[in-house]
């Protein structure tokens, strides 16, 4: 008898069936991966189990007995806990204060801290109950979330995309903790779309596509390639094919750049690098090490404190964004929905953002030209949309990213800064975005690729610059570097040897 079972779950949202007769069983002492592309319905399913959403029909059984879960409170009482992708912690509270937050009954912080310490030792979590959460690294904050669940006697832990924000080292630590919990009889569900982690960590994997379960398989009897095929529904190419390209002259150069963030903290501390024609230079690093500020400063969305930026040997440091664009720099920002696109405007309107000056007839917009441009964009880059009048916000993440990337590519700029181009996208979309970037490299464009995904950098880049705490701590040849080496460098544990 499985510890947890969901039977024939149906959940409809306006316009979509998110879950269609979904069955899933989770055993005690099992790490179960829930795999699927964005919109496959995996998050919805787990949110039903956690009481966030109600189901339209179906049943949930714990130890064979049917249960009603109407709210997260019910779920917690039944031993089900969830760690969300965005942590739900109060930064100014201590670990123990965060843990007891929301609990009923007498408040005894000292007793709670004692119990936390025991739990932390028992599960090798290494968390100090008195530490303030805001001073803890992300990886430790995640352990605090896990500790919160154990404190509430959770038997089933649901982790939503747990490795998205972790360094390689932190990821290894997390996996050790999870394996420990498994051996003590806890059930764990990890919701993810990263194939390699599943094969490494999970016992069984349930693959969802279009709201349905397509397969539940044991990880011992499957491969990454097989899982990718199940998830996408067709053969996918997990390795990008990079042809040799003659490296041209330097197009984009950055010299000794210093940049501050909104609160005045220096995030970029003396970065020097150059990107040549026909080359992809990757910037590796854990989020928050100054990569975003570097990209924004290059595009002049953020002023540089010190240092100089050159485009084709012409200094552009103090020029406006519009001038950067005019001199041949395109930018794909990390925040697709707030910076890269205006979600409330149509695809056609979004297609000319940044090049609105080229689609005019006198002071007026040239509607015919805009329509042709937008049609070309969605056909050429395979943006799936009913029409160019559709609001951009209605597009899926992958289609929106294709729209933004395609728009910047059609600008035909000599240099391009691309930030986290595949974050949160599913395998199918990643495949086509990678292909587009490589095609641009072959066309002799200079591309600066900022990514937290080491796989992506190893697949696409010619050289990889590792950024740590605002500095470039090493520039490596992508052909001869290993993931392990990069992993150590982005965690600040190793300088270039």
């Amino acid at each position, binding site marked *: 008898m499985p510890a947890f079972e969901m039977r024939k779950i149906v959940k409809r949202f*306006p316009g979509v069936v998110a879950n269609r007769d979904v069955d899933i069983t989770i055993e005690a002492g099992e790490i179960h991966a829930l795999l699927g592309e964005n919109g496959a319905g995996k998050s919805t399913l787990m949110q039903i189990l956690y009481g966030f959403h109600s189901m339209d029909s179906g049943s949930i059984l714990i130890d064979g007995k049917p249960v009603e879960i109407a709210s997260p409170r019910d779920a917690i009482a039944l031993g089900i806990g969830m760690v969300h992708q965005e942590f739900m912690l109060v930064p100014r509270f201590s670990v123990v204060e965060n843990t007891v937050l929301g609990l009923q009954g007498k408040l005894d912080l000292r007793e709670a801290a004692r119990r936390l310490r025991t739990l932390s030792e028992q599960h090798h979590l290494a968390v100090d109950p008195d530490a303030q959460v805001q001073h803890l690294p992300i990886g430790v904050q995640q352990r605090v979330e896990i500790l919160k669940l154990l404190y509430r006697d959770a038997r089933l832990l649901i982790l939503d995309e747990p490795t998205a924000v972790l360094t390689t080292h932190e990821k290894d630590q997390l996996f050790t903790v999870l394996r420990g919990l498994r051996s003590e009889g806890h059930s764990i569900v990890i919701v993810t779309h990263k194939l390699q982690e599943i094969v490494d960590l999970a016992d069984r994997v349930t693959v969802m596509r279009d709201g349905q379960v397509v397969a539940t398989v044991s990880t011992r009897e499957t491969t990454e390639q097989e899982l990718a095929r199940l998830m996408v529904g067709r053969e996918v190419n997990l390795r990008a094919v990079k042809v040799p390209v003659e490296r041209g002259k330097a197009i984009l150069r950055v010299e000794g750049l210093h940049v501050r963030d909104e609160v005045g903290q220096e995030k970029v501390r003396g970065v020097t690098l150059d990107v040549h024609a026909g080359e992809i230079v990757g910037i590796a690093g854990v989020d928050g090490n100054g990569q975003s500020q570097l990209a924004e400063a290059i595009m002049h969305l953020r002023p540089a404190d010190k240092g100089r930026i050159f485009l084709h040997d012409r200094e552009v440091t103090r020029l*406006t964004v519009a001038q950067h664009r005019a001199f041949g720099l395109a930018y794909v920002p990390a925040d697709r929905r*707030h910076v890269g696109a205006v979600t409330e405007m149509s695809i056609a309107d979004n297609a000319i*953002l940044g090049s*609105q000056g080229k689609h005019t007839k006198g*002071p007026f917009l040239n509607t015919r030209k805009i329509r042709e441009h937008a049609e070309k964009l969605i056909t050429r880059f395979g943006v799936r949309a009913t029409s160019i009048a559709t609001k951009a916000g209605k597009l899926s993440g992958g289609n929106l990213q294709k729209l933004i990337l395609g728009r910047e590519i059609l600008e035909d700029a000599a240099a391009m800064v691309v930030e986290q181009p595949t974050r949160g996208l599913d395998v199918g979309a990643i495949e086509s975005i990678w292909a587009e970037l490589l095609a641009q490299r072959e066309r002799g464009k200079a591309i600066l690729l900022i990514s937290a995904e080491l796989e992506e950098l190893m697949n696409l880049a010619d050289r990889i610059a590792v950024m740590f705490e605002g500095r470039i701590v090493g520039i490596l040849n992508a052909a001869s570097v290993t993931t392990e080496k990069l992993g150590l460098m982005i965690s600040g544990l190793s300088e270039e040897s």
Partner: protein
Amino acid sequence: MKLIERRVSPADSPLAVTTAMVGAAVVAMLITSLLFTLYKANPLQAYFALFHEPFASWRGFGYTLVRTAPLTLIALGTIVSWRSGFGYLGFEGCFVIGAAATSWLALNTAFSSWAFLPLALLLSFAAGAAWAGMVALIRARFGGNEVLISLMMNYVAILIVQYLVSGPMRAPGGVPETALLPRATWLPFILPGTRAHAGILLALLATLLVWVLLRKSRVGYELIVSGLSPSAARFGGINVGARLVFAAFCAGGLGAWAGLVEVLGEQHRLMDGISGGVGFTGIIVALLAKLNPLAVIPAAVLYGGMTVGANAMQRRAGIPSSITFILQSLIVLMVLASDIFRRYRVKLT
């Protein structure tokens, strides 16, 4: 069996939208009927009085147009500024500044009537643009809060006009007001036997201009992007600060034209309290039109007409005209709330 079902996306066919709007107005009128019965009046007679005069009598219709013109101009100003992300509320100020600038020009210069009007349009637009532009500069340069500043500046403008009409521009006599403006400066009357004047034509022209600006021009595109997402606008190479100031210029200028229309078309002199709150009612009209420039005219006609009808209703049915204001407010509330109903459908099976 659920009788009411949530729709996948809100019903947005013209029929559904119209039905929702008309339904909202009817509900507002039903609620107001309860108020009428407090005065022992027959609601049907009261509504007849309210709507007959402004829409079914020639003279009353003239008055309706007189009220519509400034409302339209203010509503258009609201649309330009709000769509650009500039939450301007200083139209009372722009109105009186525009009225004062126009009166000054009319009283102190002697241009022929064909030269006067373009000059007055230019001068009052510039005065209103400068008035609203100040707020935009503070917001764009120093990040000041335009809502608070523009509201406060209304009082400044009203006090300036109070000073002008009781001091430098005061005509001899008991009341704080200027002398009657020279007849040559008046806007021509356009419907024989009524007080309707050419101000309504200016309002129509402005509607067309604002529609073209927002829907058809590059500047309008950049304004709307700035309003919806300033960070995306900057990414697209748009100078958000400059666009904000531009939007404020247009909004202030349109607000000042409302003052010009009132002075040259209706009052023919500058006096204290000349705006009568139109700087705020215009904003309500813009809301009623859902910030769509083409919907402003019907919304303003309805609103202006009801103001005219209110007096007739007071005379004929003995109901306080202030109830009309309650009705007007209820209509706006109901129309804004009616959107919710378009998200559901009724299942009769």
